[in-house]
C-alpha cells in the first residue's frame, strides 16, 4: 500500500507547515509604545468616503474619523467648537456666523478655510454632482435656497445659496427658518469640508493618495473589499488629544466570525453600529464578560405600519385593538433580548427636548396595553365595518431572522388575546420596500433612526408630504402642528407642538410602536474614551488605551 504512505506524508507535511507558520506569526497587540491600535469591524466595504456622498453608517464610521466639521459633539452630546472656534447667531435665529480657527489644516498641510466649507456644501447640493447627485443633500435644505438649487429650480444658481465665505476665517450661513439644532448638524457628514483640489479629480475619495482630509485621522491603507486603515493625522490642530495611532477596520460580514475574532483578540470591538453580535449569545456574554458586554439605548424605533388606506385597517378602533393586544415587554425580554425599551411613542429616549431629554419631559403614555379593552375595541371596530370576524392579518417584513421572530411572537399574541389569525411573510429587501412604498401591504415592519438630535427627525416622518410616511396617514392637524414647530425657535413651544403631533399619530395608531432600539457591543478592557453617541454611531476619535 504505497499510496497510503503518500497520504500520510502529505498530511504530515501540511500539519508541519501549519505549525511552522503558526510559530512565526506575530499577533498584533493593542497597546504598543507609539500609541495604540484600535480594531473594529465594518462588515462591508463603504460605498463612498466622499462626505457629500455618504448615506450609510459604514461609510460614516470611517468618514467621521477622517473629517471634522465646524462643531463636534462630546460624550455627553454637547456641541463643542471644532474647526469653528466660535460662532454668532443673529437675534432672529436665521443667520449664523462661524469663525474658523487659524491652525486648522488639511492632511497635506494646506489651511482649512471658510471657502472650503462653502465649496463643500455647494458641491453637495450641486444637482450635477458626479458620479450622481448626493442622496443626503436634503440635510442641507435648512440653508436658504439650498432646496431650490439642489432640485435645479429655474433661475437659482449656486450663488443664491445662503452660505458664503466672507474671508478665509469667516463663514456666514443664512437659514430659511430658525433651526435650534443647526449647530448639532455641523458634525453630520454632509456638512464636512472638502479640499478644493477635488475639483480636478472627481474620483479623489477612492484612493489613499488623493484622499485629503482634515480630521483626527488620515487614510493610511485601503485593501479594497478587505480592510481599511486610518492613521493619526499629524496636521490635525489638536493632534495631542489624539492617542490612537491607527484604527483598523475589517470587513467581515458574519456575526459569529466577528465574535470569534473579538474573543481571540483579532478585534478590540465587536457589535453595533457597523458589526453585529449574534443575539442568541447575549445572555451568555452578559454573564461571562460583564465588563466588556455593553448595552446602551439608541435613538431609533422599531414599529409596525398599518396601511390606513386598506380595509379594515382604515378603522381606528381595529388598529388600536391590535396595538393594545401585544406585550412589548415580552418581545423585548424573550425575542430580541438586547434590553430594548418597549415603545409607546415614536420619539426614542436620548433625543434632546427643551432642557433635558424629550422623552423625560414628554413621557410616551399615549396609550396602554390592555387586552380586555382591545377585545372591546375590536368588536366595536368590526361592527362599524360590518364584519362578523377579523379577516386574516398579513404581516410583511424583510428577510431577517430577528424580524421573523418578532412577527411570529406578535402573531401568537394576537391569536391568543384576540383570536385573530395572522399570516407572516418575508420579502426580499427591494421587493419589500417597493411594496411598502406603494402601500401594497396590510401590516408592515418599519424602522427609523435619528438624523439629528431633535424630535422633528421622527415627527416629520408622518407629515402628509413626507416621502417616508408609507401608511396613508394624512392629518391636517398633524401637518399644522409640524408647521408651527418649524416656524419658531421657542423650544418650549416647539416641543409642545411636536408632543401633540406625536399623540395624534400614536393615538390613531397609524403605526404600532414596538420598541426603542439599543446598541449592543463589546469592547476590550483598557480602551477608554470610545463611545456610542445618542443615535448609535461610534466615536473613537479621542479614544485611548490604558493598560491596567
Amino acid at each position, binding site marked *: 500500500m504505497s499510496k497510503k504512505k503518500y497520504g500520510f506524508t*502529505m498530511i504530515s507535511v501540511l500539519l508541519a507547515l501549519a505549525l511552522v*507558520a*503558526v510559530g512565526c*506569526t506575530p499577533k498584533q497587540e493593542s497597546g504598543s509604545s507609539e500609541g495604540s491600535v484600535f480594531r473594529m469591524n465594518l462588515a462591508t466595504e463603504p460605498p463612498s468616503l466622499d462626505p457629500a456622498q455618504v448615506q450609510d453608517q459604514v461609510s460614516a464610521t470611517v468618514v467621521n474619523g477622517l473629517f471634522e466639521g465646524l462643531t463636534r459633539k462630546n460624550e455627553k452630546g454637547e456641541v463643542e467648537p471644532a474647526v469653528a472656534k466660535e460662532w454668532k447667531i443673529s437675534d432672529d435665529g436665521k443667520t449664523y456666523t462661524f469663525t474658523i480657527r487659524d491652525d486648522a489644516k488639511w492632511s497635506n498641510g494646506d489651511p482649512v478655510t471658510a471657502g472650503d466649507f462653502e465649496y463643500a456644501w455647494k458641491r453637495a447640493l450641486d444637482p450635477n454632482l458626479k458620479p450622481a447627485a448626493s*442622496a443626503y443633500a436634503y440635510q442641507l435644505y435648512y440653508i436658504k435656497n439650498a432646496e431650490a438649487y439642489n432640485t435645479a429650480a429655474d433661475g437659482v444658481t449656486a450663488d443664491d445659496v445662503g452660505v458664503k465665505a466672507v474671508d478665509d476665517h469667516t463663514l456666514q450661513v443664512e437659514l430659511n427658518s430658525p433651526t435650534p439644532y443647526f449647530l448639532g448638524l455641523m458634525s453630520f457628514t454632509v456638512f464636512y469640508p472638502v479640499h478644493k483640489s477635488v475639483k480636478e479629480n472627481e474620483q479623489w475619495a477612492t484612493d489613499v493618495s488623493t484622499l485629503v482630509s482634515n480630521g483626527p485621522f488620515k487614510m493610511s491603507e485601503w485593501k479594497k473589499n478587505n480592510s481599511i486603515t486610518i492613521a493619526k493625522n499629524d496636521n490635525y490642530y489638536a493632534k495631542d488629544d489624539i492617542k490612537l495611532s491607527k484604527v483598523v477596520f*475589517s470587513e467581515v460580514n458574519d456575526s459569529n*466570525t466577528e465574535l470569534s475574532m473579538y474573543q481571540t483578540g483579532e478585534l478590540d470591538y465587536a457589535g453595533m453600529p457597523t458589526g453585529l453580535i449574534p443575539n442568541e449569545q447575549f445572555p451568555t456574554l452578559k454573564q461571562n464578560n460583564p465588563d466588556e458586554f455593553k448595552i446602551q439605548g439608541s435613538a431609533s424605533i422599531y414599529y409596525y405600519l398599518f396601511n390606513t388606506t386598506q380595509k379594515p385597517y382604515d378603522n381606528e378602533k381595529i388598529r388600536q385593538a391590535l396595538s393594545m393586544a401585544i406585550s412589548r415587554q415580552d418581545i423585548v425580554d424573550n425575542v430580541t433580548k438586547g434590553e430594548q425599551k418597549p415603545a409607546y411613542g415614536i420619539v426614542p429616549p436620548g433625543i434632546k427636548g427643551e432642557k433635558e431629554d424629550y422623552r423625560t419631559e414628554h413621557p410616551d403614555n399615549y396609550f396602554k396595553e390592555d387586552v380586555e379593552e382591545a377585545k372591546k375595541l375590536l368588536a366595536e371596530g368590526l361592527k362599524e365595518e360590518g364584519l362578523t370576524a377579523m379577516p386574516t392579518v398579513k404581516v410583511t417584513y424583510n428577510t431577517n431572522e430577528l424580524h421573523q421572530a418578532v412577527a411570529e411572537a406578535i402573531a401568537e399574541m394576537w391569536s391568543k388575546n384576540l383570536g385573530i389569525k395572522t399570516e407572516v411573510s418575508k420579502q426580499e429587501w427591494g421587493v419589500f420596500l*417597493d411594496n411598502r412604498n406603494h402601500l401594497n401591504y396590510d401590516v408592515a415592519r418599519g424602522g427609523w433612526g435619528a438624523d439629528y438630535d431633535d424630535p422633528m427627525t421622527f415627527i416629520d416622518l408622518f407629515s402628509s408630504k413626507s416621502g417616508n410616511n408609507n401608511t396613508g396617514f394624512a392629518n391636517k392637524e398633524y401637518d399644522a402642528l409640524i408647521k408651527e414647530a418649524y416656524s419658531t425657535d421657542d423650544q418650549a413651544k416647539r416641543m409642545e407642538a411636536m408632543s401633540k403631533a406625536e399623540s395624534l399619530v400614536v393615538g390613531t395608531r397609524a403605526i404600532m410602536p414596538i420598541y426603542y432600539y439599543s446598541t449592543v457591543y463589546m469592547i476590550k478592557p483598557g480602551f477608554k474614551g470610545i463611545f456610542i453617541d445618542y443615535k448609535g454611531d461610534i466615536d473613537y476619535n479621542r479614544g485611548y488605551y490604558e493598560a491596567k
Partner: protein
Amino acid sequence: MVRYVLQKLLFMIVSIFVLASATFFLMKAIPGNPFQSEKNIPPAIQERLNEAYGLNDPLGVQYLHYLNNLIHFNLGMSMKQQYVTVVDIIKTGFIYSLQIGIFAIILAIAAGVLFGLIAALNHRKFLDGFTILLAVLGVSIPSFVVAPFLQYVFGVKLRWFDVAGLNDPTDFIMPVIALSFLPAAFIARLVRSSMLEVLSADYMKTARAKGLSGRVILVRHALRNAILPVVTYIGPMTANIITGSVVIEQIFGIGGLGKFFVNSITNRDYTLIMGLTLFYAVILMLARFLTDIAYGFVDPRIKMTSRKGG
C-alpha cells in the same frame, strides 16, 4: 480539432448573448433600484440619480446600450460603490477566490483520488468502510457547518490560526480545507466506484496475464480509466470553486467574489449583477471546454473531430 474549437467558440458567444439578454430582463423585472433604503431619497434627487445612471431610458434602449458596451468589453461602473468599475470589483475579488480556489482544487483532487483508491483497493474491508463513511460525511455536511467547526476548533480553541482574514500564508489553511471538503468527498466516491468497475474489467485480467507489475497496472491501466468521471466533474467544479464560495468567504472574512453574487442582487447593482453573471458563465464554459480537450488526452477513444456541438 480546429473546426471543433471554432464550433465551440461560436457556441460560447451565442450562449453568452442569450444569457446576457435573459439576465438583463429578469434583473430589471424585480422591483427596486440601486438607491433604495429604509429612508427614501426625496423624489427630485431620486430622479437625478436615475438620470445619471441611465435608468430613466426605456428598457429597450437600456438593453441596446448595455449590449453595445458589452461588445466593447465595457462592463460599466458599479451603481453602489462609487467610481469603482465592475471590472475592478471582479479583479480584486477574483484574486482571493482564485488563490484559495486553486489550493482547494489541488487538495480536493489529491485527497479524493487517494481516498478513492484506498477504498477501492480495500474493497469490503475496514478501510473501505471507513473512507466511505468519511466521504458520505463530506458530501452531506454542508460548508456552513464545516467552516465554523474548523474555525471554532483551530481558531478559537486551539488558536493555531487567525479566525478570519487572509493576511498570513497560514490563513489559507482553514478556508482551503473547508472549501475542498465536499469536492474531495465527491471525487473519492467517483474514484472508488469507477475503480471497482475497472478492476473487474477484462483488459485488467489481460494486463495481469501479460505479467505487468502491480503498480504499472494500477497507474497505467486502472487509474487512467477510472479517472475519466473525475475529469468530467473537475471542469464545473473548478468553475464553481474559483468564482468564490458565498458561505466560506463570508465565514472566514475573505474579500473574494462570492459575496458579490448575493450582495449585487440585494443592492440592485445592475451593472455588477450583469458583470458577475457573464464572468461566471465565461469561466464555466471555458472549464467545460478544457474538460472536453482533456478528455481527448485521457481517453483516446474520444476523437474531437467526430463530436459535434457537444
